[in-house]
């Protein structure tokens, strides 16, 4: 869908890398511009394949940069900057997370039709412009953090790098909006900005609603997870179920006396009396396999869930049946989460540092191989 587009990714955080990965999954030609010798920051962040860390063993890098090209270029040198300008003349989109004004000017002087896509923690201007943030700080300021975690403890962040991926998703969709504008307008110097603060404030969907309309702030609460034989489940009986679900559930449970129990006769009541209900179910759940509970209960129209560990996902019948994973060098990578006309986009493995220098500098920009080796000797490439 985006086969006509070339993208330069200058970013160093997961957000930018995930945004350009999504563009790549839709056909864009994405060039990851990395620092000579060092590479993207994610190359030195784990998890790693082996205990010894080196720049080609970061699984975070591999996951984020699947389907892209890698070149090395030191844009802080004069020569490097000149080469960068050549590169700018043949691309449509630049993704950046450095918030550098100098870069802005260079980009549009070289090619005013470029869409500059900027990722920051708090935006490019405003009262927090000099603030330092990161995923945790942004989750706090956005209103997301306050209501997560246990009431007896400190607020808890959403795990892993998921806050960063959120910003990547936001950047991806923002770029598409900006692209629409560029395609339909004569105006140049198009910039689209997103920030961790805004993206995560969009992701808190209950906290600001409840406090404004109900007049009281949300509070942290424990999760309704029950312990099964081999992990955790939720029963999904308090929302989204059908009229006959409860009846069928009591049959599965072999507890017909619960069918007419007035504490649990409607979804609202089951939600209200959830902890009482969970106490009754505890023993039954504890002796069952988590995935079996999930299937049994989903089949009577509940929205039951089981906490899938990464290794469970690798064995999930549903994900395997949909050929969700890409097998690359013997490892299963989570695939692109959509199919277009029943075809899932598939992507090549992540590039080694500078793997595509010849393809891009020589084939695309017309440098001679001898030029490239000179640049290599001087450390620009």
């Amino acid at each position, binding site marked *: 869908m985006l086969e006509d587009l070339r993208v330069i990714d200058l970013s160093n955080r997961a957000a930018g890398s995930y945004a350009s990965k999504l563009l790549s999954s839709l056909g864009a030609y994405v060039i990851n511009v990395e620092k000579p010798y060092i590479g993207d920051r994610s190359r030195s962040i784990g998890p790693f394949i082996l205990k010894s860390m080196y720049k080609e063993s970061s699984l975070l890098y591999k996951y984020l940069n699947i389907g892209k090209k890698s070149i090395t270029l030191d844009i802080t040198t004069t020569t490097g900057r000149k080469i960068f300008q050549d590169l700018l003349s043949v691309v449509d989109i630049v993704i950046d997370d450095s918030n550098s004004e100098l870069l802005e000017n260079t980009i549009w002087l070289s090619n005013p039709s470029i869409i500059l896509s900027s990722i920051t923690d708090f935006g490019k201007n405003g009262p927090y412009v000099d603030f330092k943030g990161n995923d945790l700080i942004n989750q706090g300021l956005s209103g997301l953090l306050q209501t997560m975690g246990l009431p007896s403890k400190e607020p808890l962040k959403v795990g892993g790098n998921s806050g960063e991926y959120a910003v990547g998703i936001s950047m991806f969709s923002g770029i598409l909006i900006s692209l629409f*504008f560029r395609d339909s307008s004569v105006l140049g110097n198009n910039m689209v900005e997103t920030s961790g603060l805004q993206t995560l404030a969009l992701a808190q969907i209950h906290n600001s609603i409840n406090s404004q309309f109900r007049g009281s702030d949300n509070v942290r609460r424990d999760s309704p*997870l029950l312990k099964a034989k081999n992990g955790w489940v939720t029963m999904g009986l308090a929302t989204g179920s059908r009229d006959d679900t409860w009846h069928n559930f009591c049959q599965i449970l072999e507890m017909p006396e619960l069918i007419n129990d007035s504490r649990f006769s409607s979804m609202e009541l089951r939600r209200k009396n959830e902890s009482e209900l969970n106490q009754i179910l505890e023993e039954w759940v504890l002796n069952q396999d988590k995935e079996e509970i999930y299937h049994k209960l989903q089949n009577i129209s509940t929205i039951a869930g089981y906490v899938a560990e990464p290794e469970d996902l690798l064995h999930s019948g549903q994900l395997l049946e949909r050929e969700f994973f890409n097998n690359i060098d013997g490892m299963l990578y989570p695939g692109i989460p959509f199919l277009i006309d029943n075809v899932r986009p598939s992507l090549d493995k992540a590039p080694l540092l500078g793997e595509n220098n010849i393809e891009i500098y020589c084939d695309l920009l017309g440098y001679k191989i001898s030029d490239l080796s000179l640049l290599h000797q001087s450390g620009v490439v």
Partner: protein
Amino acid sequence: MNNLLNGLRILDLTQVAAGPYTTMLMGYFGADVIKIESSSRMDINRGPVKPSPATHTVYPNNNPGNQPWNLAAHHIQRNVNKLCITLDLSQAEGKKQIYELIKISDVFIENFRASVVDRLELDYESVRKINPSIIYAKISSQGNSGKEKNYGSLGSTLEQTGGLASVTGYLGNKPLLTNETFPDPMVGLFSVGIILSAIRRRQMFGKGCFIDLSQRELTVNLIGEHILESQSDVQLPKLLGNSHKIFAPQGVYKCLGEDDWITISISTDKEWTILCNIMNKQNLIKKIEYKTAFDRHKHSKEIDVIINEWTASKTKYKLMRILQEAHIAAGVVSKGREVVNDPQLNFLQFWDNVNHPHAGKYKQVTTPWNFSNLERNMTIPAHNLGEDNQNIFQNFLGLDNNKYQYLLDNNIIGGSPS
């Protein structure tokens, strides 16, 4: 107001959160969103017809009024920028009318359990017969194939089945859910980009397409590196609380004030020295056990005690000011009523001041973007159930008064919620 997506017509059969977010966001750029409900099956966001005292639906000032379905706060917040019509799709005449709408629309978006559209004859094949260039976005829990295709979920289910819960929790504790149904807004935000890509291709080549987005698969994408790690030689604990893999200390600390907290993250040894100076604990700077991030990770429990002692007597806003002035990453943990007044979010024009005709004044979530040459529209407050029936069926589809009355009388359009 004139905007980028003017003239783009979206038939929106989604409900709850993910889909409504997508169409809300596209509405901010001028797309014409026609939200289709029926009086017997309203968007779940509208809550129950007759709320009991046990209801968890939120109403302005806790007062559901005479038409609770038009006041439910989650409906008010997510169904902005849309026209609301009611149509009973299980009746032949209802089907005929939605087919008429499909003919004149560009995008069809739904998030039912997968088989529902087959039953309603609104699956991609049926829809494409009526409008070959339509873009059909199916945003289902598990995707349009596989044995779990008809399984249902909310965001809190996806956190489990997509693995997000397996990495969310306090250090060494059990998995936890976010209580903010985190995958939902992610899917909503993601779908905007995919749908726009498809529209762009259609503009170039005239081809519509079928988008099969699995919410579970998108959730798995959020923990991709953990999936790879589970196959590698080295596996570290997945539940890390608020700590950072490299930086230390990093955490959430108690401040003066009820349930008031601050986040602090120290990313270099130099910042550690600065923090020790600010805390007036110079003795810690020299302490060899706390020298590097690696050391501080090892001693994070005792360091957290020291930081908590210092933060406990100060307000979170004061702490944020002091620490940020010293170039240390720190921020208040905002409560719901605080985040709508956040000066930076307001500077970025993230919140719109909306005066809803029934629900009153509130601050509306808008979009996470700022553009150099483009502005989003102002929020159009959420419409009542079926508010736009006459406009759509008579002005758009050209039904005469008799026919319109016939559809009303037979409960094909309109009718009271039941």
